[in-house]
C-alpha cells in the first residue's frame, strides 16, 4: 500500500503527543513520559490528558491526567564530537547544513489523577491531548467541591496553556477550615505578587465564600509602606485583567467595606499612617490602647530579664485584683485603676504608705524592690510605645464583637517601632482567638494576613510572643475559624510549623538560592527554573486536592496599589497640634468651625487636650464640640506670680580689705 501524506484524517480532539515507555524510562502509576512535535504549546506546568486506546470493542480506556514537570530535547547526534566533525570545527557551518537533524521533544509528567482510580496502574501508552476546562477540573479533583450540593469553590486564578484559560478553584473547606486551613505565599520582593495575590484572593473569598459556612472577615496587618492603605480605591485594570475576572466569575471591584486603624504618632494627634490624604484620612480610626488593653500583654513589651517569677506574679496580681475594680491599698486609700496614670498613683500611695508605716520591704507579699521594678517598667511602656499606648486617655480599639462580614480591617503598623508591632500583633491575634472561641466576634471566620513572616515567625532566633501567636494560629486556628494568610520572601527561613500547617502553598517568583534549600527538593529542576523566572501575576499553587503543584495566573487586584495610592493620594504633612485637633473635631462634626476649637484649646496643656479629644472620640456624642468643651473643663488660671522679692544685699560685701 502506498500512502500519500499531507491530509490529516484524525477525528475529534487532535492528540499532541504519545506516551512512550522504555525499560529505562517506564511509565508508572505516578509518572509518565510522552513526546510531542517540536512546535507545541506544551510547556512546564501544562496539564495533559492521556487516553488509552480501547481494544476497538467500544469500551472506554483508562484516562490519566498529568502535569508536565520536566522536558528534554535531543537529536540523533551520537556524540558532540560528530557535530564538530560535521561542521569542520566551525560553528557557523553547523547552521548551514542542508538538513536539520531529527530532534525530539520528550516530556515528563506527574500523574494528577487516574480514571478509574482503582486499581491503580501504570499510565497506559496512549495518546496525549491538551486538557480543556473540564479536564482541568477533573485533573485537580475540583469536581468534588464545585459540583457538590454545597459548592465550596473559591476562584484562585486561571490555568493557562496554549490559549486555554481554565479557572482553578480552591476548596473553602481546606482554605478557611475546618478540614484544613491557612495559606502561605512566598516570593521575591518587589514584584508586587504576594500582596496582589492575597488582595485578589481576599476579594474572591468575599465574593464566593459559601453562605452556609457563615460570615467571614479579614484582618490585615500593614507592615510595609502603603501596601494595604488603599484597598477601598479602584486600581487600573487592562482588558486582559477584566477578561480574567469575568472568566473567574469575580467582580473587579475594590473592597466595599474597609476599616483602617493606625496608632498616633508621638505627638498624639497625627496618625502614624500613609493614608493621611485629606480625602481619605477621615476613615482612619486611631488605634489607642490604655492600661487595660496592654497589661495582659506586658510580657510582650518587657524583656526576659525584666520578667522574673516575682515580677510576673506581681503583674498578675495587678491584672487580677487591681485593674478595673475598686482596690484598697491597705493604707486607707481606695483606687480604681484604669489608666497608667491611675496605676502610678497607686504605686505612689503604696510607697508613701510603706514609708509612713515604717515598713519598707513587703506589701501584700510582694517585695518593694519587685514593685519598684514593675512600676519602672510599666510606666515606661507608654513612653516606648508613644502614640499607641496612652497614659491616661481612653482607648480606641478594633470593634471587638462587632466585626462585620466581608469587611477588611487594616491595622497599619508599618511605621510603628518593632516593640509596638509586637504588641499589636499579640493583642489583636489573642483577642481574635478568644472571641472566636466564644463565638463573640461578629463573624465566624477571620483571615489574618501577615506579611514578612521571615521577620515575625523566623525559623531560628529567640522565642517571641508574635511567633508564639502565629504558631498558635497555625496549629489551632482552623478549628476556630482563625486563618493565617502569611507571606514572606524566603519560606525556608520561616518557622517550619507555621509553613507546615498551611494547607495551601503559593509560590511567586523565587530566588534561586532559596530554591536550592531542602524544602524544594521535591520540585524538578525544570519547575525550579520556571519558578525562578515566573512572570508577575503567575503563581505556583499547592492545595490539598491537587496531587501536584499547578501554575495559575491571576488578574491584578482591582484595588489601588500602595505605590500608586501614595501618588494619587499623597500623604498630608503632619499638622501643628492645634490644626490636628481641629481636623479630628471636624471629622466628628463637619459643622464645627476651626476657630471655635482653636479658641477652646488655646493656652491649654496638650495632655488635657488629648485626653478631652480621646474622650470625645470615644463617646461619639451628638454635639462633639460641647462634649469636648466639658471634657476639657474650665481653664484653671495659673496662680498669679508673687511680687518679685527685692534682692538682699550680701552681709559681707567683698571689699578691698585683705581679710
Amino acid at each position, binding site marked *: *500500500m*502506498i*500512502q500519500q501524506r499531507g491530509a490529516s484524517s484524525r477525528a475529534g480532539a487532535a492528540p499532541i503527543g504519545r506516551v512512550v515507555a522504555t525499560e529505562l524510562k517506564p511509565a508508572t502509576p505516578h509518572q509518565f513520559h510522552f513526546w510531542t512535535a517540536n512546535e507545541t504549546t506544551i510547556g512546564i506546568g501544562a496539564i495533559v490528558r492521556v487516553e488509552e486506546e480501547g481494544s476497538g470493542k467500544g469500551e472506554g480506556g483508562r484516562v490519566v491526567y498529568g502535569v508536565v514537570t520536566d522536558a528534554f530535547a535531543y537529536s*540523533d547526534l551520537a556524540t558532540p564530537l560528530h*557535530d564538530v566533525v*560535521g561542521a569542520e570545527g566551525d560553528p557557523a557551518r553547523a547552521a548551514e547544513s*542542508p*538538513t536539520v537533524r*531529527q530532534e525530539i521533544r520528550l516530556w515528563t509528567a506527574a500523574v494528577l489523577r487516574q480514571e478509574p482510580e482503582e486499581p491503580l496502574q501504570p499510565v497506559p501508552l496512549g495518546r496525549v491531548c491538551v486538557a480543556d476546562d473540564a479536564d482541568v477540573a477533573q485533573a485537580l479533583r475540583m469536581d468534588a467541591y464545585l459540583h457538590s450540593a454545597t459548592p465550596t469553590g473559591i476562584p484562585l486564578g486561571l490555568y493557562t496553556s496554549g490559549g486555554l484559560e481554565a479557572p482553578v478553584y480552591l476548596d473553602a473547606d481546606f482554605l478557611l477550615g475546618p478540614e484544613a486551613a491557612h495559606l502561605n505565599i512566598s516570593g521575591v520582593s518587589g514584584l508586587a505578587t504576594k500582596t496582589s495575590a492575597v488582595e485578589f484572593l481576599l476579594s474572591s473569598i468575599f465574593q464566593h465564600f459559601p453562605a452556609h459556612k457563615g460570615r467571614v472577615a479579614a484582618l490585615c496587618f500593614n507592615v510595609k509602606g502603603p501596601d494595604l492603605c488603599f484597598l477601598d480605591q479602584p486600581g487600573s485594570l487592562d482588558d486582559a485583567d477584566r477578561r480574567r475576572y469575568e472568566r473567574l466569575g469575580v467582580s473587579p471591584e475594590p473592597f466595599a467595606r474597609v476599616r483602617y486603624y493606625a496608632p498616633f504618632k508621638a505627638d498624639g494627634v497625627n496618625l502614624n499612617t500613609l493614608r493621611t490624604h485629606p480625602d481619605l484620612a477621615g476613615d482612619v480610626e486611631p488605634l489607642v490602647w490604655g492600661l487595660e488593653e496592654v497589661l495582659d500583654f506586658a510580657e510582650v513589651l518587657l524583656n526576659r530579664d525584666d520578667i522574673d517569677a516575682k515580677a510576673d506574679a506581681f503583674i498578675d496580681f495587678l491584672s487580677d485584683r487591681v485593674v478595673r475594680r475598686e482596690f484598697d491599698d491597705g493604707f486607707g486609700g481606695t483606687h480604681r485603676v484604669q489608666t497608667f496614670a491611675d496605676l502610678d498613683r497607686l504605686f505612689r500611695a503604696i510607697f508613701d504608705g510603706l514609708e509612713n508605716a515604717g515598713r519598707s520591704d513587703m506589701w501584700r507579699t510582694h517585695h518593694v524592690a519587685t514593685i519598684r521594678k514593675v512600676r519602672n517598667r510599666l510606666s515606661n511602656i507608654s513612653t516606648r510605645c508613644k502614640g499607641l499606648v496612652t497614659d491616661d486617655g481612653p482607648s480606641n480599639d478594633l470593634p471587638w464583637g462587632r466585626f462585620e462580614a466581608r469587611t477588611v480591617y487594616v491595622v497599619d503598623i508599618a511605621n510603628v517601632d518593632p516593640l509596638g508591632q509586637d504588641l499589636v500583633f499579640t493583642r489583636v491575634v489573642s483577642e481574635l482567638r478568644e472571641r472566636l472561641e466564644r463565638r463573640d466576634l461578629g463573624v465566624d471566620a477571620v483571615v489574618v494576613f501577615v506579611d514578612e513572616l521571615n521577620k515575625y515567625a523566623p525559623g531560628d532566633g529567640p522565642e517571641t510572643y508574635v511567633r508564639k501567636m502565629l504558631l498558635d494560629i497555625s496549629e489551632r486556628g482552623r478549628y476556630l475559624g482563625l486563618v493565617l494568610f502569611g507571606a514572606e520572601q524566603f519560606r525556608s527561613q520561616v518557622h517550619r510549623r507555621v509553613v507546615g500547617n498551611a494547607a495551601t502553598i503559593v509560590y511567586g517568583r523565587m530566588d534561586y538560592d532559596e530554591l536550592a534549600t531542602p524544602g524544594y527538593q521535591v520540585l524538578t529542576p525544570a519547575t525550579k527554573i520556571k519558578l525562578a523566572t515566573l512572570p508577575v501575576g503567575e503563581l505556583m499553587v499547592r492545595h490539598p486536592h491537587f496531587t501536584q503543584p499547578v501554575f495559575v495566573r491571576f488578574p491584578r487586584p482591582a484595588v489601588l496599589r500602595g505605590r500608586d495610592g501614595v501618588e494619587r493620594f499623597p500623604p498630608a504633612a503632619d499638622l501643628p497640634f492645634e490644626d490636628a485637633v481641629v481636623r479630628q473635631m471636624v471629622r466628628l462634626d463637619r459643622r464645627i468651625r476651626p476657630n471655635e476649637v482653636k479658641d477652646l484649646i488655646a493656652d491649654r496643656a496638650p495632655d488635657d487636650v488629648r485626653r478631652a479629644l480621646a474622650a470625645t472620640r470615644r463617646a461619639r456624642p451628638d454635639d462633639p464640640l460641647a462634649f469636648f468643651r466639658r471634657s476639657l473643663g474650665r481653664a484653671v488660671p495659673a496662680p498669679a506670680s508673687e511680687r518679685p522679692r527685692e534682692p538682699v544685699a550680701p552681709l559681707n560685701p567683698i571689699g578691698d580689705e585683705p581679710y
Partner: protein
Amino acid sequence: MTAHRRLRDALVAAGAVPASHIPEESTGRGDLLEVAGAELVEGPDLTVHPLEAAATPAAVAFLDGIERWLVTCYDGVIPIVRGFVAAAIRRRAATRRMATALEATREFLVAPVPLLRPGVRAALEASGIDVIDVSDKAEQAAQPGRALEAARRAVENARVALEKTLAERHAAGLGPEEWLVVDGVLSESAALSRHPRALGVIKSHAAQYFEGDALTRALTVPDQHRSSVFRPRGRARHEVYSWYLRLWPWEGNDLLFGLVRVEARAHADTVAAASRVSGWLARERAPLATPDRRWDRLLYPMHDVETYLRARAPRDLVPPTASRLPLALPRRAS
C-alpha cells in the same frame, strides 16, 4: 492475534516446526560481486575534478528502502520465510526538515511452495498473505542454507521493486526545481535513468569499472573532488552516467572511506553539471549520519529515511538483543 501468528500456528498445526531466527544478512543487502567495465565520457583519461560551490536545491527528495525477514517455520528442513520491505521518500524543503512524501510497505512469505507438504501448503494458501514462490530455484531450495539465500534474494528483489515503484511515481510529479536522490543505482529504472533531476548515490564498491592507473585515480580521488564522468558497463539495465565523489578524506582510513559513486542520466548536460551537482551533494555529508557505521558514505537524509522506515517496521522483525533461548524445553526423562 496477528495474521502472522495465526499463520504460524496453522503451519505448526500442519506439521511445520516453529522457528525464530533472523539471519544477519536480513538487515542489509549483499554487495554486487562483479567486475564491470566503463567508458569515459568526460575527456580521454580519467582525471580528478574539484567541486563547484553550489547552493543546495530548494527542494530535494530522498528515497531509501529497508528489508527485514525471518524464518517463521521449517517444514522439514525447508524454511518458510516471512519478509517485510518498506520504502519511503522524504522530502526536504526550505525548512531544512524532512517530511514524508510517499511511503510503501509490503509483507509476504517466501518458500519453495511445491516442496512443502500438502498440509503446510494448504495453510499457506489459506492465510491470504502474498507468497513468493522460489521453487524455480528448487535445486537450491532443497538445502536449507541455499533456501535462505534464495529467500534473501527474493526479499531484496521485492525491496528494489518497491523502491523503483515509489521512485518512478514521485519522479513523475517532480517539480521543476526539485531533485530526487535515490539510495542505490538508477539504472534499474528506465524512467529514473532518463530523468534530468534524478541521482543515484551508491555506497558499495564491489563492482569496479577501471583497472590500472585509472582505477588508482578513481579510488584515490581526494576529499571534495570527483572523478571524470564515465558510462558504466556490465550489469546496468539502462544506460546512465556515473562518477566517483569523495565526501571525506580517506587518508588515514581505508581506500573507500567517504567514497560514493553517483549515477545520473546519460546526457551531455550531466557531464556539464557533474561538478555543480557534486558540490551540493558533498554538502549533504553534514550533519553526520552517525551512529550508522557507514556514516562516511551515507548522506544524512538517507539515514533519516532509513531511521524513519526502521522505526515503523514491525517490531517482531527486529533482531532480538537478548540471547536466543530455547522456546520449548526438552522433556525431563522420568
